[in-house]
């Protein structure tokens, strides 16, 4: 669900590419053709995609943790079943995306190692804690809502396997947002304490949700090249504005207020204008200093280490069965 434009600086030499092949590649992009795994592509296109798709995959995997925190404490069986299904979807989305990244020549083991060592980034939003049940509502409504805004244009991204993964993901995502909004609606129609819980969740998740779209266009080094190659279809600021315009009326319907004194409707443009985002906080959380960064990575590392014997045993079992089948075949001949 959770792509985020993190705009990591591009490293490595800008190798002199074969000009003719580059021209052919760009002509295909301009003609809205999809690029497939074995097609020639510029190294920078490959690197950008590996970075973006794997960050997106890592975000899905880490994104299971804040919500998983409430599975055992969901207030009813209906809510628990929905939350379980949602968290399972996030795991599935991570797997579709890892598979898409692998078609670019990176292995699953490398990708997982990058996440666990802290070298790879994931969406900053998952470094915030889920303190109350209302946070599960706010995540579905706001975080999945922001993710959908980001992801729908990615269904038309120029790299075929990424676009196909995004189509599957978007189909499954809409349930996530609706179940979150339904939780918020139920709380807002409940007791004053329940409504206060919903308001508190909105107050804490609103700004981090806006940060999910990544740094402002003026500071976004890769936007121009990514737009040129149709990896991205809209800029960070365009998507952020779309999200605000769609979400503010939904919040007002709930009878909630947004934690932004500058938020106002601009009738001239038809857009909701919002106050300044604290980019210092965004950079801090991304650099590893958010409320839950250490806990999230720690949990992933523990799960990986504790599952090592299962992976080993499965491979050993498969090898033993292969050897036995081969021996029987020889005996039969």
């Amino acid at each position, binding site marked *: 669900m959770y792509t985020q434009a993190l705009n990591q600086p591009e490293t490595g030499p800008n190798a002199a590419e074969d000009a003719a092949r580059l021209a052919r590649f760009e002509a295909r992009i301009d003609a809205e053709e999809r690029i497939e795994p074995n097609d020639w592509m510029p190294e920078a296109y490959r690197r950008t995609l590996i970075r973006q798709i794997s960050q997106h995959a890592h975000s899905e995997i880490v994104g299971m943790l804040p919500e998983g925190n409430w599975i055992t404490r969901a207030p009813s069986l209906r809510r628990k079943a929905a939350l379980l299904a949602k968290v399972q*979807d996030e795991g599935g989305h991570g*797997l579709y995306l890892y598979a898409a990244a692998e078609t670019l020549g990176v292995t*699953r083991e490398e990708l997982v190692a990058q996440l666990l060592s802290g070298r790879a980034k994931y969406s900053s939003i998952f470094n915030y804690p889920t303190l109350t049940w209302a946070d599960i509502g706010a995540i579905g409504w706001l975080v999945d809502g922001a993710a959908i805004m980001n992801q729908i244009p990615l269904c038309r991204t120029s790299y075929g396997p990424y676009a196909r993964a995004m189509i599957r993901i978007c189909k*499954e995502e809409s349930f996530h947002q609706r179940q979150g909004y339904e939780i918020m609606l139920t709380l807002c129609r409940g007791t004053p304490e329940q409504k206060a819980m919903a308001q508190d969740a909105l107050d804490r998740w609103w700004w981090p949700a806006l940060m999910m779209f990544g740094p402002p266009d003026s500071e976004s080094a890769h936007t121009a090249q990514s737009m040129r190659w149709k990896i991205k279809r809209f800029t960070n600021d365009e998507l952020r504005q779309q999200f605000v315009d769609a979400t503010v009326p939904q919040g007002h319907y709930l009878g909630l207020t947004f934690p932004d004194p500058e938020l106002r409707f601009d009738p001239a443009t038809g857009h909701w204008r919002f106050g300044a985002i604290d980019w210092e906080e965004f950079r801090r959380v991304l650099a590893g200093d958010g409320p839950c960064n250490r806990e999230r990575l720690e949990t992933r590392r523990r799960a990986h280490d504790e599952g090592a014997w299962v992976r080993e045993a499965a491979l050993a079992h498969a090898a033993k069965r292969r050897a036995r089948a081969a021996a029987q075949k020889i005996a039969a001949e």
Partner: protein
Amino acid sequence: MTETPMPLWEVFIRARTGLAHRHVGSVHAADAEMALQAARDTYTRRGEGLSIWVVPSAAITASDPADKDMLFEPTASKPYRHPTFYTVPDEVGHM
């Protein structure tokens, strides 16, 4: 962290009776049986299929995109393989 890589499998799903199996993605698994189970969990959470095939990715031989012209261009110069190449008088009716 040097781990033995988990083998890769391509997943094909038949969505409804009468349709062909269609490629939907891939999974990593130690053997065919686990690949089937992983494919079921990953690709059929909403009734997407009635049947799954898993094939070791290494067993697939694919054409090279660079050979596209050599392989497929000759068909463009053979319009006589299409029914519209032949003229049949209107009086004969539909054929």
